[in-house]
């Protein structure tokens, strides 16, 4: 494991390219919105276009700067920095669980859906698959339900079942 944090040049480089492409896409999209109004002022397309253009310019500078740093760096054998693939898989599975939760949000009762999300979240983050996992998941779901539905009186999916 590395003890000294290294500059994240590869990540920065990839991000700067993504931001640059997104900026270009935004400029093209903003071109379809009028950038002048009839009474001499700016139209609704002006700011989005220039925001996209700014993103392109800044990302280009960032990309060039990062490339220069990368070229100066000596190539090193690949090292495991901090986290292994297991952690990244857990994050990916959590994101997937969250996506399923969102899909089920308007179809399943809030309490059940949140209980399932909490149980999966707990299991993925290392809680042993024992009774405590179910109790904690039920508790999280119940506390949230109580706060939002009973205390704040904000309806959540399926909360009408409880009157």
């Amino acid at each position, binding site marked *: 494991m590395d003890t000294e944090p290294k500059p*994240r040049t590869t*990540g*920065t480089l*990839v991000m*700067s390219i993504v*931001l640059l492409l*997104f*900026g270009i896409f*935004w400029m093209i*999209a*903003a071109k379809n*919105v*009028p950038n002048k*109004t009839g*009474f*001499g*002022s*700016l*139209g*609704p*397309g002006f*700011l*989005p276009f220039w*925001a996209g253009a*700014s*993103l392109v310019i*800044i*990302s280009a*500078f*960032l990309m060039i700067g990062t490339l220069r740093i990368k070229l100066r760096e000596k190539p090193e054998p690949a090292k495991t920095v*901090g*986290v292994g693939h297991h*952690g990244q898989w*857990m*994050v990916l599975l*959590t*994101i997937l669980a*969250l*996506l399923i939760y*969102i899909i089920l*949000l*308007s179809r399943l009762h809030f309490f059940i859906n*949140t209980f399932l*999300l*909490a149980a999966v*979240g*707990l299991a*993925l*983050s*290392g*809680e042993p698959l024992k009774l405590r996992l179910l109790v904690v998941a039920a508790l*999280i*779901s119940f506390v*949230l339900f109580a*706060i*939002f539905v009973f205390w*704040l009186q*904000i309806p*959540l*999916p399926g909360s009408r079942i409880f009157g």
Partner: protein
Amino acid sequence: MEAVHLMIGGFQAAFSWLNLLYLFIGVLFGNLVGVLPGLGPVSGTVLLIPLTFKLPAATAIIMLSGVYYGAMYGGSTTSILLNIPGESSSLMTAVEGYQLTKQGRGGAALGMSAITSFIGGTLAVVGLMTLSPLMADVALSFGPPENFALIFAAFTIIASLGGSSVLKGLAMGALGVVFATIGIEPMVAQNRLTFGLAPLSGGVSFVAAAMGLFALPEVFEGIEQPGQVVFQKVALKLRNLMPNRQDFKDSKTAIPMGALTGFIGGVLPGAGATISSFFAYGIQKRIAKRPELFGKGSMEAIAAVEGANNAASTSALIPMLTFGIPGSGTAAILMGAMIIHGLQPGPLLFENNPDVVWALIASMYLGNIMLFILNLPLIGIWVSFMRLPTHIILTGVLAISVTGVYADENSLGDVIVMFGFGILGYILKKTDFPPAPIVLALVLTEQLEGALHRSLVISGGDWSIFFTRPLSLGLLLLALISIILQMPAFERWVGKIRRLAREEVGG
């Protein structure tokens, strides 16, 4: 005289049972957030926004600002006892405090931290009360070009100071403006760049974006790198928590200096509690009678740092309340919450909603007193909270985030937006891009665009209006200088000149 009347009215409002209850909840939750590593004041404040949807505006803002300064109090606890800064502004407290804990003086360090936090926080509220109406009057004299230049300058300064690289901060600011332009344009009320997606016609939900950018990445990172806090036993009896006479004698310059540095740092956009605490530490080290103790457990360093970060968290509200410019990420979240509750931070806030402003200021006195009383007796409880497995807390945060965003508008679209911003926030965290400028842009872009439009209407489309008015020109130059000074090319150029100068002197 009018200010006294308004302040009395503010105290009357702050003393209502409802406001006292929510202030208590806010400072208590803030204290806990400060204690828990991983959750900072920004994510803590964001998490409580959904609880305010049904509350009156003043009560909501009182509670949320309580979370902010409450977190500053709590941040010192784990720093001193466990060498884990609850948030970044407590970093130097951890450096000094943990050394004192190892020397058996952890209790006194906690006591000193609570006392100086109280003094710093309270002095900053006095400053806030005195300066804010004056600054609001100044801000009222601004025309649209000055407002545009001010927002633009604040934007660039905050973006350039916010992260490890000025370009990364600026790129995030630009990305934030891009997101903020989605939905109905405010001047001609035309729908733009929604790509036919109905949930986007109202624009990107501030709560969804903030929750996604700040709360979800903490959860993902906690799941990726599960860690357990190693708890060490410390004598936490109340009698061990009082610093001795020598400690106070050593800290007599550190306390006012820390409070003053923090106050100034909080008012300046971009500086905030973290930079103020580093400044206060550096200044105190230079003026200390025993600088050799710094790094080995210095009580006066703790006094300076804690006074500074608490004062800064309060004074950061001044530019937000008076100019409508949030000076930090948390202030941007608070400003967003104010807008959700129908308040428009800025000079007119003092004219249109004096009841809310003065109730907020009065509540900050009470909040500081509450925190001072609560802080020391609660330390034992907070430390036992540290025994809770982190993944249980993070799973709770995950569930609160989704429920809170859904509850805002009962909109599935907002939850999807939060999901997207959550993934973006996680990627930004991994690649070391600061997310705060995005939130700042979401809050400020509407004002920026409005000021730009109005300025050009006044000038008949002539852009020179921004450069012919002295204040506007000065602010734009300030923005430019703040960017240039942070550029790597400028740093290299300064380094080259220094080298040449050294060679000249040497040769």
